[in-house]
């Protein structure tokens, strides 16, 4: 069954959507969109390193993104620069360094478009294992830290005062962000990973009245985006990442009609 490249891409995309759904909600709630982008940009460096050292891409991306997150936290503590400036600095410099390194790697054939925007031809059975096992691990961890993470998202001091250890939850969540980028890079592409996190969750926000329902709608939105996007990609020979994100955007636009209705009801 997994002989067919398209089935593999579909199974991979579905696995990714299950994880980006809940994580994306937290990205929106905690205003981490640009943070996710920064980690994703650094992924290019991770990929190039993986090629140079003939190492697994997902693990290499995960390590580089985690290191970048640590550097960011240190810079936030030790400089007076605002957070968004630091994020921009790291995002663009890590992307630039990644591209420069690629320039040196003339001996390797590189599909840079596939890397940036996803490639459904590239998903191997090995990648499926990484996505589903890694994804299950991410979701389990998220379930474990849900309470402190959510409570501190609502109010940090309440969570800290009532003994939930929000700092630990935040650190673990940062690592989960690096992990989801690592596992979804093949299917969505590194430039569009943040879109996969944010857009289905944004759509879900328009439809939901509680955190739990937002997570569920976000997963459903992600699944639909992946399925619609991948079929489009197959049909019209477009890159998988942009096709998935465009499908997500259409779902988001549809969800806007729901808000209009509920605002009307209120008035």
């Amino acid at each position, binding site marked *: 069954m997994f002989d067919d490249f398209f089935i593999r891409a579909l199974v991979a995309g579905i696995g990714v959507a299950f994880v980006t759904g809940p994580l994306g909600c937290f990205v*929106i*709630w905690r*205003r981490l969109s640009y943070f996710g982008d920064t980690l994703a940009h650094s992924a290019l460096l991770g990929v190039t390193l993986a090629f140079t050292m003939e190492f697994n891409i997902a693990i290499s991306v995960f390590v580089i993104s985690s290191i970048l997150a640590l550097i960011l936290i240190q810079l936030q503590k030790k400089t007076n620069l605002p957070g968004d400036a630091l994020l921009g600095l790291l995002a663009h410099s890590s992307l630039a360094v990644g591209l420069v390194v690629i320039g040196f790697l003339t001996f390797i054939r590189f599909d840079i478009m596939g890397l940036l925007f996803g490639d459904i031809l590239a998903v191997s059975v090995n990648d499926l294992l990484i996505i589903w096992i890694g994804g299950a691990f991410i979701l389990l961890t998220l379930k474990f830290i849900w*309470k402190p993470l*959510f*409570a501190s*998202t*609502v*109010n940090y*001091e*309440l*969570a*800290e*005062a*009532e*003994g*939930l250890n929000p700092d630990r939850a935040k650190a673990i969540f940062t690592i989960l962000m690096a992990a989801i980028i690592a596992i979804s890079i093949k299917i969505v592409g590194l430039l569009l990973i943040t879109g996969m996190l944010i857009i289905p969750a944004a759509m879900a*926000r328009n439809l*939901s*009245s*509680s*955190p*739990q*329902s*937002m997570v569920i709608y976000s997963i459903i939105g992600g699944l639909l985006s992946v399925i619609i996007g991948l079929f489009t990609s197959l049909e019209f020979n477009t890159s998988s990442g942009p096709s998935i994100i465009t499908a997500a955007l259409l779902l988001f636009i549809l969800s806007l009609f729901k808000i209009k209705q509920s605002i009307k009801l209120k008035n």
Partner: protein
Amino acid sequence: MSTDQNILVKLNDAGLQLNNKWLVKGVSLQVEKGKIVTLIGPNGSGKSTTAKIALGIYKKIGGSVEKYTNKVGYVPQKISIDWTLPLRVNDFMMLTESLNKDTIDEALSLTGVIHLKDKNLGDLSGGEFQRVLLARAISKKPDLLVLDEPVQGVDFTGEIALYELIKKISGELSCGILLISHDLHTVMSATDHVVCLNGHVCCSGSPMDVAKNNEYKALFGEQASQILSRYEHKHDHIHTDEGEIKKN
């Protein structure tokens, strides 16, 4: 039981320094089971900071804090909740601890906001939200309640009722309460121990002791201490459990 076992939290010469400036310094106090300790003082005197030190929110403090319980309920003074979160009152009640329906309903009824249970948190008025905050803090049946101006924005009759409730809870749950309040009337009627802050502990003791203190008078003015003495005159009777008034 000796007094020591009743201590829930104890501050020893505690303080917080930020950018080389002490926000509050040299605070020693303790909150015991079933007792209400109130912090008073002008704006910027370090009341909220002291409460947060007691809660262990700040990591780098001067002096030390000994905390003997993890069952804590907290009503912060300012709470900036991001309204992009779809959060109903019911979800908010279970923010830090999972509670069953009856417990939630009971707490919301006590603070008079049970009818708001399914409302979105962003749609509440300031006073309604304050009542929800208080309900959330007491619903966990904590050992230690830290209430930072818990009735701000609540209407006048509600304010009195909520202070009555706070007093009742301290008795029923035999929990210790660290209260910050601006309302001197209430402070003096409900409190076992008053700590008057102004960047440091300017005076402390029973409400009457504090009222007579000269530093307190200098801080709050002559009128404030009259409030207290007037208050004492009002109580030439006690209320029995049956709600009857008994002359002393």
